[in-house]
């Protein structure tokens, strides 16, 4: 027992949003905002991050609820547990895509602990970053740890850690907005613009800002939608790639389509080229086939983490073909 004790830390439990913002403003990058802690606590145990002040958002009622806001748009607080996202009638009835994606995260136990805000702000992953303090003691720090080496891509010029949260592609095709709160008030940003692509700091947040929740667009049942995740193991694993597709048909052709991928690069990606290619066309076998290279192109230089780039590209091709064909059938 106790092979991995947590480091000494302080645990702050703000009860209101104002208190939370005040803590974040006071501690800045010195503190970590904690939802379920499912990713943060293991990182602290492994001494991957220097943070020693935890600010829990659990006690704040308005960040722990799912409710309707103006125009019937649902708001999901950052502190809502994934299990509650999946089971909530608003989500399961009107946004089943999000429920599917949330259900593909980790395991039963972790979904009972982890929050939607936590999944949205999940730090980029890399097999080296996750190593213990002892492992790092004999090596030069990588970009993510403040050094200037990358062990994933030897000779790489930047951090190549991988964005891998499964709910992100679903929220991207739903065109959700992230509610960012801070001492200067709140702002909304389309989820697509929320990610920096910089593995060291994947979320576009100021030092005194944090995520309050997510706003979904009004429900629209005119869309066909699907989600698929492929990971090395069938359960409890990060994806090789996860894919969400939403499309609207008019007559026999595609009126509108949105496609998003995660797990393939330093940031989640929206496949705009593939979307343009499909719009206005019928979804014949040939159209889908011609679109496949555009999907691979959208992923950009794919991550080397976990599987080879060639295999990851192949997974993207197969997932895309299967998912779109399934949506047409």
């Amino acid at each position, binding site marked *: *027992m106790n092979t991995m004790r947590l480091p000494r830390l*302080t645990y702050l439990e703000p009860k209101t949003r104002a208190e939370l913002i005040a803590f974040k403003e006071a501690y800045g990058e010195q503190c970590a905002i904690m939802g379920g802690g499912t990713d943060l*606590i293991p990182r602290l*145990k492994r001494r991957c991050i220097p943070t020693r002040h935890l600010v829990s958002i659990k006690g704040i009622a308005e960040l722990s609820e799912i409710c309707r806001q103006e125009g019937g748009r649902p708001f999901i607080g950052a502190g809502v547990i994934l299990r509650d996202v999946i089971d909530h009638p608003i989500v399961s009835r009107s946004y089943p895509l999000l429920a599917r994606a949330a259900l593909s995260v980790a395991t039963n*136990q*972790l979904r009972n*602990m982890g929050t939607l805000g936590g999944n949205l702000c999940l730090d980029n992953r890399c097999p080296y970053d996750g190593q213990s303090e002892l492992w790092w003691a004999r090596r030069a720090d990588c970009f993510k740890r403040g050094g200037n080496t990358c062990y994933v891509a030897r000779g790489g010029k930047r951090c190549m850690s991988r964005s891998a949260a499964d709910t992100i592609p679903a929220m991207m095709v739903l065109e959700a907005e992230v509610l960012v709160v801070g001492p200067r008030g709140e702002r909304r940003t389309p989820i697509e613009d929320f990610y920096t692509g910089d593995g060291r700091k994947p979320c576009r947040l100021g030092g005194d800002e944090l995520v309050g929740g997510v706003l979904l667009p009004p429900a629209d049942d005119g869309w066909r939608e699907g989600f698929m995740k492929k990971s090395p193991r069938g359960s*409890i694993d990060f994806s090789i790639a996860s894919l969400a597709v939403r499309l609207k048909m008019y007559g026999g052709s595609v009126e509108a389509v949105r496609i998003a991928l995660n797990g393939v690069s330093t940031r989640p990606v929206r496949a705009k080229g593939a979307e343009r290619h499909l719009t206005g066309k019928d979804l014949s076998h040939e159209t889908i086939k011609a679109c496949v290279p555009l999907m691979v192109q959208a992923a950009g230089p794919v991550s080397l983490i976990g599987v080879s780039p060639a295999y990851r590209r192949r997974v993207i091709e197969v997932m895309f073909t299967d998912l779109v064909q399934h949506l047409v059938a």
Partner: protein
Amino acid sequence: MEKRLIELSVNGERHEVAVKPNDTLLEVLREKLGLVGAKEGCGVGECGACTVLRDGRPVLSCITLAVDAVGSDITTIEGLSEGEEMHPLQASFVRHGAVQCGFCTSGMILTAKELIDREGNPSATQIREAIAGNLCRCTGYVKIIEAIGAVGDRKK
């Protein structure tokens, strides 16, 4: 680091314990309350050996802060049996030979309890999905799935 006096509700009993902010729920259960049914396997939330029920739902006590468990009802494997009487799931695990080294068993049973409470008579697929976060390194999954399924069938 200052100790805090907290009240934990475990297996229906209230316990006052002095904890540090970096004590995990698992450490408090095992070292302060003497409830050693929950095990530490990986220590980082991957293996499920430390599973306990928090307000009826399976969670991982090795990555739960003890201070964060205040206000919840915690159930450990010790809280399942009624005196000498085993819980139907425990009896079924024994009957089906679903216990080998036993290290994963308490977590398996607690995860299964929530599934049976929620679904009544879960299918084999539902059982597999529910226990996906409980690793059995003796790989005795077939017997475990049968043992859980038998309790579901009995409830029908």
